[in-house]
């Protein structure tokens, strides 16, 4: 049964590949020159923008790594600007490369989201996925752009590398006395654990009950009656996706608040609870 699904992919995909109805056309009219598919990918005007920004960003990273002279990508690091450059431009190896990569990555993320909007328009479906993706990008924008702006220094952004971003997390976590006393951090952690728990419950419900028997007389297992027995309530097959969606929204908003308030509004999360 599963095999036949992947085979039918090729057959039904043809029915949905329709030209037109892109943002580019809605705004500018005429023909969208990039309204094509490349293998499994949809290209689109914003796909070209996004891939261009990605390629340029990777080039900047490679040039920067080459200039440092160490091709071990595990150790390679694109540092954020030194504190002395404040909110101004930094020389290439003292943070200028970081500034370029952050700009290019942000352009690429936003274009990727607009490309998702194009795909939603083509498939005539809701815009929930690009909306959720925008919220995910907001974490990057808050961390690398808004909070550094509010703190008055690009040096507040995290280094772009494996070891660099870990060090930034560790430093930032200990810098405001006790990050666990940050209430938004606690609410965000709660949200992360709740999404994981509800995810396990939903995954278990589907994996535990589906059947692929081609015989239509084989009875489908009931999910609702189990949940009512187990916890007294079943949220339903539509409701569970609403719950998961809004748990993710909640978690992302709390994460944004958690990091944006640290250092800007509050310098010491222990003292925060003892204002007088």
């Amino acid at each position: 049964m599963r095999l036949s699904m992947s085979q039918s992919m090729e057959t039904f995909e043809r029915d949905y590949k329709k030209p037109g109805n892109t943002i580019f056309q809605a705004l500018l009219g005429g023909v969208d020159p990039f309204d094509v598919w490349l293998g499994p990918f949809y290209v689109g005007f914003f796909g070209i923008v996004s891939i261009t920004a990605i390629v340029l960003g990777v080039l900047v990273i490679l040039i920067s790594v080459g200039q440092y002279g160490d091709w071990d990508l595990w150790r390679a690091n694109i540092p954020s600007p030194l504190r002395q450059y404040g909110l101004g431009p930094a020389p290439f190896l003292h943070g200028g490369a970081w500034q370029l990569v952050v700009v290019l990555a942000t352009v690429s993320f936003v274009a990727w989201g607009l490309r998702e909007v194009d795909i939603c328009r083509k498939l005539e479906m809701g815009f929930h996925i690009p909306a959720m993706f925008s919220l995910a990008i907001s974490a990057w924008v808050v961390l690398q752009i808004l909070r550094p702006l509010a703190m008055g220094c690009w040096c507040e952004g995290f280094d772009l590398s494996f070891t660099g971003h870990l060090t930034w997390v560790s430093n930032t976590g200990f810098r405001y006395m006790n990050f666990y006393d940050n209430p938004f951090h606690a609410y965000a952690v709660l949200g992360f654990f709740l999404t994981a728990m509800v995810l396990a419950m939903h995954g278990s419900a589907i994996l535990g009950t589906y059947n692929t028997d081609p015989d239509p007389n084989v009875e489908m297992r009931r999910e609702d009656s189990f949940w009512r027995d187990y916890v007294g309530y079943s949220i339903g097959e539509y409701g569970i996706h609403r719950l998961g969606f809004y748990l993710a929204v909640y978690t992302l908003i709390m994460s944004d608040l958690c990091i944006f308030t640290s250092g800007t509004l509050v310098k010491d999360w222990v003292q925060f609870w003892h204002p007088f």
Partner: protein
Amino acid sequence: MATVFSHHPPEPLEEAEPSVLDSADPLGIRAGRAMRIDLLALLKVDTQIGTIWLGTWGILSTLSFLAGLLVFYIGALDQAGGSFWVMVRYFGNIQLAPPDGLSLAHSLRDGGYWQIVTGFWAFSVLFWAGRLWERLARHKWRPFLLWAWLSAIFLTSVIWVWHPLLVGSWSDAPALGLNADLQWAQNFSVLWGNLYYNPFHQLAIFFLFGSTMLWGMHGATILATSSEGSHHEDAEIKNMTSGSQKAALFWRWTMGFNAFPKSIHDWLWWFAVGVVLSSGIGILATGTMTNNWYAWGVDHGTVLQYGPMTRSSINQHPRPMPPMTGPSGYMPAQGKI
């Protein structure tokens, strides 16, 4: 609001069908009364509440939990000097701490409360696993939910039991209390040399963020295509209709890869279970594999190195650089602290 207070005839309440496994349990009672809470329709979730299955395992689990809660409040009241209002006012600071060493506590205040409460709650979650096993069998589910629950018990038992046993003191386990939880997280990290550099902790955070991301992706995908029925996932696994076809094609066209109605739930389940499995392994490795994760990170190259010893430092740049601040011309760690 129109849908909530409309005059549609109410949907019939659903009841579980009778089963041999139900009548086999002497405490097999469906408690409460099935009813509709119409306000839930505003949230677009199911409106039926109840009934709930009691069952021997469920009764045992609940009694065990309530007994632990009772001892917790007795301990909290004791810590508040017997004053109920002091306990309420400073409830966040109430903490029932574990004893030093691995023996039974000498007194209630020196860890006895902690041992009793923890013991009751350990039995409570194990009885709950029994309830889960029994109900899953009754409804003929494959036992994915039981394995997920046992994985969660694996993490909590590592934190409260196996790690303290391995390092030789109950005092390494969290004290019971609101602020005590937060303090434990901070102190445990610092005590073992900065848990951020524990690779299993890093992997657990990857799964944790990944779980939120997957809920965002899966929830959004289903909500965006539910007008064509993609949320009837059982039926869609059997036979994909236009909603699931669009859901699959969206991801194929976006990132060149897509899951199917069944396989997406494999991804969801393993990411969620990966959180607790990876966390548990990380804490088992703490104090055994190393007692200083920062030192471990330095040894294994996961700590960012600045200064002349590392070729990737700015100082090693072949061209002349602007003068650096700091002793002997070495760059301090970017002055970030």
